[in-house]
Protein backbone atom coordinates (compact mmCIF):
# COMPACT_ATOMS: atom_id res chain seq x y z
CA UNK A 1 0.00 0.00 0.00
CA UNK A 2 2.71 2.32 0.87
CA UNK A 3 4.44 1.65 -2.51
CA UNK A 4 1.16 2.18 -4.36
CA UNK A 5 0.61 5.35 -2.53
CA UNK A 6 4.06 6.45 -3.54
CA UNK A 7 3.33 5.61 -7.24
CA UNK A 8 0.01 7.39 -7.12
CA UNK A 9 1.58 10.37 -5.56
CA UNK A 10 4.36 10.62 -8.11
CA UNK A 11 2.32 12.15 -10.96
CA UNK A 12 0.61 14.54 -8.63
CA UNK A 13 3.94 15.68 -7.36
CA UNK A 14 5.15 16.21 -10.90
CA UNK A 15 2.20 18.34 -11.92
CA UNK A 16 3.09 21.43 -10.01
CA UNK A 17 6.53 21.30 -11.60
CA UNK A 18 5.03 21.36 -15.11
CA UNK A 19 2.54 24.14 -14.53
CA UNK A 20 5.06 26.86 -13.88
CA UNK A 21 6.78 25.96 -17.16
CA UNK A 22 3.58 26.65 -19.07
CA UNK A 23 3.06 29.81 -17.15
CA UNK A 24 6.55 30.90 -17.92
CA UNK A 25 5.95 30.34 -21.62
CA UNK A 26 2.80 32.39 -21.48
CA UNK A 27 4.47 35.18 -19.63
CA UNK A 28 7.27 35.22 -22.16
CA UNK A 29 4.88 35.34 -25.11
CA UNK A 30 2.62 38.04 -23.72
CA UNK A 31 5.05 40.97 -23.93
CA UNK A 32 5.95 40.04 -27.52
CA UNK A 33 2.33 40.48 -28.55
CA UNK A 34 2.06 43.73 -26.67
CA UNK A 35 5.01 45.19 -28.49
CA UNK A 36 3.14 44.97 -31.80
CA UNK A 37 0.34 47.31 -30.83
CA UNK A 38 1.95 50.30 -29.24
CA UNK A 39 1.82 53.82 -30.34
CA UNK A 40 4.49 55.55 -32.36
CA UNK A 41 7.65 56.68 -30.70
CA UNK A 42 7.62 60.03 -32.45
CA UNK A 43 7.02 62.87 -30.00
CA UNK A 44 3.93 64.98 -30.32
CA UNK A 45 2.54 68.23 -29.02
CA UNK A 46 0.35 67.92 -25.95
CA UNK A 47 -2.79 70.03 -26.01
CA UNK A 48 -5.79 69.22 -23.88
CA UNK A 49 -8.23 71.41 -25.81
CA UNK A 50 -10.56 69.29 -27.94
CA UNK A 51 -10.81 71.75 -30.74
CA UNK A 52 -7.04 71.96 -31.01
CA UNK A 53 -6.91 74.54 -33.74
CA UNK A 54 -3.27 75.35 -33.22
CA UNK A 55 -2.15 71.84 -32.60
CA UNK A 56 -0.06 70.04 -35.15
CA UNK A 57 0.63 66.51 -34.17
CA UNK A 58 3.54 64.85 -35.85
CA UNK A 59 2.76 61.28 -36.79
CA UNK A 60 4.06 58.49 -38.94
CA UNK A 61 4.00 59.27 -42.61
CA UNK A 62 4.32 56.66 -45.27
CA UNK A 63 5.82 57.56 -48.64
CA UNK A 64 2.97 55.89 -50.56
CA UNK A 65 0.26 57.52 -48.46
CA UNK A 66 -2.05 59.88 -50.34
CA UNK A 67 -4.59 61.82 -48.33
CA UNK A 68 -7.30 64.11 -49.62
CA UNK A 69 -5.62 67.06 -47.93
CA UNK A 70 -2.08 67.42 -46.60
CA UNK A 71 -1.70 65.65 -43.31
CA UNK A 72 -0.71 68.86 -41.55
CA UNK A 73 -3.91 70.58 -42.65
CA UNK A 74 -6.02 67.71 -41.37
CA UNK A 75 -4.18 67.54 -38.09
CA UNK A 76 -4.21 71.29 -37.54
CA UNK A 77 -7.98 71.23 -38.03
CA UNK A 78 -8.13 68.62 -35.31
CA UNK A 79 -10.17 66.04 -37.21
CA UNK A 80 -8.27 63.30 -35.39
CA UNK A 81 -9.05 64.58 -31.90
CA UNK A 82 -11.46 62.33 -30.06
CA UNK A 83 -12.70 62.47 -26.51
CA UNK A 84 -11.64 61.00 -23.20
CA UNK A 85 -14.27 58.32 -23.61
CA UNK A 86 -14.01 55.31 -25.88
CA UNK A 87 -16.67 52.90 -27.04
CA UNK A 88 -16.03 49.36 -28.16
CA UNK A 89 -17.61 50.13 -31.53
CA UNK A 90 -15.09 52.88 -32.26
CA UNK A 91 -12.06 50.90 -31.14
CA UNK A 92 -10.96 49.91 -34.68
CA UNK A 93 -10.73 53.57 -35.66
CA UNK A 94 -8.67 54.66 -32.67
CA UNK A 95 -5.01 55.21 -33.32
CA UNK A 96 -3.71 55.67 -29.79
CA UNK A 97 -4.35 57.14 -26.38
CA UNK A 98 -2.55 60.23 -25.22
CA UNK A 99 -0.98 60.38 -21.78
CA UNK A 100 -3.75 62.77 -20.73
CA UNK A 101 -6.37 60.13 -21.62
CA UNK A 102 -7.55 61.64 -24.90
CA UNK A 103 -8.24 59.09 -27.63
CA UNK A 104 -6.85 59.95 -31.04
CA UNK A 105 -8.42 58.76 -34.29
CA UNK A 106 -6.59 57.29 -37.26
CA UNK A 107 -6.47 59.94 -39.99
CA UNK A 108 -5.93 57.38 -42.75
CA UNK A 109 -9.13 55.57 -41.84
CA UNK A 110 -11.02 58.85 -41.73
CA UNK A 111 -9.69 59.66 -45.18
CA UNK A 112 -10.75 56.26 -46.54
CA UNK A 113 -14.22 56.65 -45.11
CA UNK A 114 -14.63 60.11 -46.61
CA UNK A 115 -13.88 58.66 -50.04
CA UNK A 116 -16.27 55.77 -49.47
CA UNK A 117 -19.02 58.07 -48.21
CA UNK A 118 -18.64 60.37 -51.19
CA UNK A 119 -18.99 57.41 -53.54
CA UNK A 120 -22.01 56.27 -51.60
CA UNK A 121 -23.75 59.68 -51.57
CA UNK A 122 -23.02 60.37 -55.22
CA UNK A 123 -25.14 57.37 -56.21
CA UNK A 124 -28.27 59.10 -54.90
CA UNK A 125 -30.18 61.93 -56.44
CA UNK A 126 -28.92 65.16 -54.77
CA UNK A 127 -32.30 66.23 -53.42
CA UNK A 128 -32.80 62.78 -51.88
CA UNK A 129 -29.83 63.23 -49.55
CA UNK A 130 -30.70 64.84 -46.21
CA UNK A 131 -28.21 66.20 -43.68
CA UNK A 132 -29.29 66.55 -40.07
CA UNK A 133 -27.33 68.96 -37.90
CA UNK A 134 -28.43 69.72 -34.38
CA UNK A 135 -25.02 70.90 -33.25
CA UNK A 136 -24.48 74.65 -33.55
CA UNK A 137 -21.04 74.36 -35.12
CA UNK A 138 -22.43 72.04 -37.79
CA UNK A 139 -25.08 74.48 -39.05
CA UNK A 140 -22.84 76.50 -41.34
CA UNK A 141 -20.91 73.54 -42.80
CA UNK A 142 -24.17 71.72 -43.53
CA UNK A 143 -25.72 74.81 -45.15
CA UNK A 144 -22.71 75.18 -47.41
CA UNK A 145 -22.60 71.47 -48.15
CA UNK A 146 -26.24 71.49 -49.21
CA UNK A 147 -25.72 74.62 -51.29
CA UNK A 148 -22.86 72.96 -53.14
CA UNK A 149 -24.27 69.49 -53.60
CA UNK A 150 -28.02 70.16 -53.68
CA UNK A 151 -28.77 68.08 -50.59
CA UNK A 152 -31.61 68.84 -48.16
CA UNK A 153 -30.54 70.47 -44.87
CA UNK A 154 -32.32 69.61 -41.62
CA UNK A 155 -30.74 72.20 -39.39
CA UNK A 156 -31.50 72.93 -35.76
CA UNK A 157 -34.01 71.04 -33.72
CA UNK A 158 -35.21 67.94 -35.50
CA UNK A 159 -39.01 68.06 -35.38
CA UNK A 160 -40.36 64.64 -34.45
CA UNK A 161 -42.25 63.24 -37.39
CA UNK A 162 -40.18 65.12 -39.94
CA UNK A 163 -39.32 61.82 -41.60
CA UNK A 164 -41.92 59.41 -40.35
CA UNK A 165 -45.22 61.27 -40.03
CA UNK A 166 -47.01 61.34 -43.42
CA UNK A 167 -49.49 63.93 -42.12
CA UNK A 168 -46.81 66.45 -41.21
CA UNK A 169 -46.81 69.14 -43.92
CA UNK A 170 -43.06 69.87 -43.77
CA UNK A 171 -42.16 66.22 -43.99
CA UNK A 172 -39.12 65.34 -46.06
CA UNK A 173 -38.70 62.07 -47.87
CA UNK A 174 -34.99 61.40 -48.38
CA UNK A 175 -33.38 58.16 -49.53
CA UNK A 176 -30.31 58.56 -47.34
CA UNK A 177 -29.56 60.69 -44.31
CA UNK A 178 -26.29 62.00 -42.90
CA UNK A 179 -26.15 62.94 -39.22
CA UNK A 180 -23.43 65.00 -37.57
CA UNK A 181 -23.60 63.17 -34.27
CA UNK A 182 -25.73 60.05 -33.70
CA UNK A 183 -26.24 61.05 -30.07
CA UNK A 184 -27.19 64.67 -30.66
CA UNK A 185 -29.30 63.69 -33.68
CA UNK A 186 -30.86 60.68 -31.98
CA UNK A 187 -34.36 61.59 -33.16
CA UNK A 188 -33.22 61.70 -36.77
CA UNK A 189 -31.52 58.32 -36.39
CA UNK A 190 -34.62 56.84 -34.79
CA UNK A 191 -36.96 58.06 -37.51
CA UNK A 192 -34.59 57.11 -40.32
CA UNK A 193 -34.46 53.60 -38.85
CA UNK A 194 -38.23 53.49 -38.76
CA UNK A 195 -38.63 54.48 -42.39
CA UNK A 196 -35.76 52.19 -43.41
CA UNK A 197 -33.32 54.55 -45.06
CA UNK A 198 -29.54 54.16 -44.68
CA UNK A 199 -27.84 56.38 -42.11
CA UNK A 200 -24.37 57.86 -42.47
CA UNK A 201 -22.94 59.33 -39.28
CA UNK A 202 -19.94 61.34 -38.23
CA UNK A 203 -18.77 59.49 -35.14
CA UNK A 204 -16.24 60.47 -32.54
CA UNK A 205 -14.62 58.06 -30.10
CA UNK A 206 -17.59 58.25 -27.72
CA UNK A 207 -20.31 57.30 -30.21
CA UNK A 208 -21.96 53.95 -30.72
CA UNK A 209 -23.01 52.31 -33.96
CA UNK A 210 -26.64 51.79 -32.96
CA UNK A 211 -28.78 52.43 -36.04
CA UNK A 212 -25.85 53.65 -38.14
CA UNK A 213 -25.06 52.04 -41.51
CA UNK A 214 -21.90 53.89 -42.42
CA UNK A 215 -19.51 55.59 -40.04
CA UNK A 216 -17.07 58.41 -40.69
CA UNK A 217 -14.67 58.45 -37.75
CA UNK A 218 -13.86 62.07 -37.02
CA UNK A 219 -14.02 64.84 -34.51
CA UNK A 220 -17.68 65.87 -34.67
CA UNK A 221 -17.46 68.66 -32.11
CA UNK A 222 -14.77 71.01 -33.35
CA UNK A 223 -15.69 74.05 -35.42
CA UNK A 224 -12.77 73.75 -37.81
CA UNK A 225 -12.95 69.94 -37.92
CA UNK A 226 -16.59 69.98 -39.03
CA UNK A 227 -15.79 72.54 -41.71
CA UNK A 228 -12.93 70.48 -43.07
CA UNK A 229 -14.90 67.24 -43.05
CA UNK A 230 -17.94 68.65 -44.84
CA UNK A 231 -15.75 70.50 -47.34
CA UNK A 232 -13.89 67.28 -48.10
CA UNK A 233 -17.07 65.25 -48.50
CA UNK A 234 -18.61 67.94 -50.71
CA UNK A 235 -15.51 68.07 -52.88
CA UNK A 236 -15.38 64.30 -53.22
CA UNK A 237 -19.09 64.09 -54.04
CA UNK A 238 -18.68 66.70 -56.78
CA UNK A 239 -15.68 64.85 -58.12
CA UNK A 240 -17.52 61.54 -58.10
CA UNK A 241 -20.44 63.10 -59.95
CA UNK A 242 -18.06 64.60 -62.47
CA UNK A 243 -19.16 68.17 -61.76
CA UNK A 244 -15.56 69.19 -61.11
CA UNK A 245 -12.38 67.63 -62.35
CA UNK A 246 -10.59 64.95 -60.33
CA UNK A 247 -7.91 67.42 -59.25
CA UNK A 248 -10.07 70.54 -58.99
CA UNK A 249 -11.44 72.21 -55.90
CA UNK A 250 -14.94 73.63 -55.45
CA UNK A 251 -15.35 77.43 -55.71
CA UNK A 252 -15.79 77.80 -51.94
CA UNK A 253 -13.01 77.43 -49.40
CA UNK A 254 -12.85 75.68 -46.06
CA UNK A 255 -13.13 79.07 -44.35
CA UNK A 256 -16.55 79.55 -45.97
CA UNK A 257 -17.67 76.29 -44.41
CA UNK A 258 -16.53 77.30 -40.96
CA UNK A 259 -19.12 78.49 -38.45
CA UNK A 260 -18.60 82.15 -37.68
CA UNK A 261 -17.77 83.07 -34.12
CA UNK A 262 -19.65 86.12 -32.88
CA UNK A 263 -17.92 88.94 -31.04
CA UNK A 264 -19.57 87.94 -27.77
CA UNK A 265 -18.24 84.39 -28.05
CA UNK A 266 -14.77 85.72 -28.83
CA UNK A 267 -14.88 87.89 -25.73
CA UNK A 268 -15.96 84.93 -23.62
CA UNK A 269 -12.99 82.89 -24.79
Amino acid at each position, binding site marked *: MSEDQVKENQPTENLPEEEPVEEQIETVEAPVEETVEPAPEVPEAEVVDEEADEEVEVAETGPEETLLLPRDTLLSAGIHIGTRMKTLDMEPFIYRVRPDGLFVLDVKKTDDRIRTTAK*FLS*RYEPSKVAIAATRLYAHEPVKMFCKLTGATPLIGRFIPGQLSNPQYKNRVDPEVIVVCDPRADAQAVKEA*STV*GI*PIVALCSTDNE*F*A*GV*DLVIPTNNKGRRALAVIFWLIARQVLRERGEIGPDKDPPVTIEDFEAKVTREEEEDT
Partner: protein
Amino acid sequence: MSEKLSLVTCTSCGKPIPPGSESTKFLCPNCGEIQIKRDGKCRKFGRLYKCPKCGFQGP
Protein backbone atom coordinates in the same frame (compact mmCIF):
# COMPACT_ATOMS: atom_id res chain seq x y z
CA MET B 1 -50.87 26.42 -56.29
CA SER B 2 -48.64 26.83 -53.27
CA GLU B 3 -45.77 29.19 -53.87
CA LYS B 4 -42.97 29.68 -51.44
CA LEU B 5 -42.20 33.19 -50.33
CA SER B 6 -38.47 33.83 -50.29
CA LEU B 7 -37.46 36.42 -47.72
CA VAL B 8 -34.29 38.40 -48.20
CA THR B 9 -31.58 37.55 -45.71
CA CYS B 10 -29.59 39.93 -43.57
CA THR B 11 -25.98 40.44 -44.69
CA SER B 12 -24.80 40.62 -41.07
CA CYS B 13 -26.51 37.64 -39.46
CA GLY B 14 -27.76 35.65 -42.47
CA LYS B 15 -31.27 35.34 -41.06
CA PRO B 16 -34.35 36.12 -43.14
CA ILE B 17 -35.61 39.65 -42.66
CA PRO B 18 -39.25 39.71 -41.60
CA PRO B 19 -41.44 42.27 -43.35
CA GLY B 20 -42.20 45.40 -41.38
CA SER B 21 -39.00 45.41 -39.36
CA GLU B 22 -36.77 48.47 -39.25
CA SER B 23 -34.55 47.01 -41.92
CA THR B 24 -32.75 48.76 -44.72
CA LYS B 25 -31.00 47.93 -47.94
CA PHE B 26 -28.42 49.88 -49.86
CA LEU B 27 -25.68 49.30 -52.37
CA CYS B 28 -22.26 48.57 -50.95
CA PRO B 29 -20.73 51.97 -50.12
CA ASN B 30 -17.41 50.95 -51.59
CA CYS B 31 -18.06 49.01 -54.79
CA GLY B 32 -21.73 49.83 -55.35
CA GLU B 33 -22.46 46.47 -56.96
CA ILE B 34 -23.74 44.33 -54.12
CA GLN B 35 -26.88 45.18 -52.22
CA ILE B 36 -26.36 45.15 -48.47
CA LYS B 37 -29.42 44.19 -46.45
CA ARG B 38 -29.55 44.77 -42.71
CA ASP B 39 -32.37 43.80 -40.39
CA GLY B 40 -33.60 45.93 -37.53
CA LYS B 41 -31.72 44.05 -34.84
CA CYS B 42 -28.37 44.15 -36.58
CA ARG B 43 -28.79 47.87 -37.13
CA LYS B 44 -29.81 48.42 -33.55
CA PHE B 45 -26.88 46.48 -32.14
CA GLY B 46 -24.43 47.88 -34.66
CA ARG B 47 -23.39 44.47 -35.94
CA LEU B 48 -20.76 44.45 -38.63
CA TYR B 49 -21.52 43.66 -42.26
CA LYS B 50 -19.12 42.69 -44.99
CA CYS B 51 -19.50 43.08 -48.73
CA PRO B 52 -19.11 39.65 -50.29
CA LYS B 53 -17.51 41.15 -53.37
CA CYS B 54 -15.09 43.88 -52.32
CA GLY B 55 -14.70 42.93 -48.66
CA PHE B 56 -15.72 46.35 -47.37
CA GLN B 57 -16.57 46.08 -43.71
CA GLY B 58 -19.11 48.36 -42.12
CA PRO B 59 -20.58 50.26 -40.41
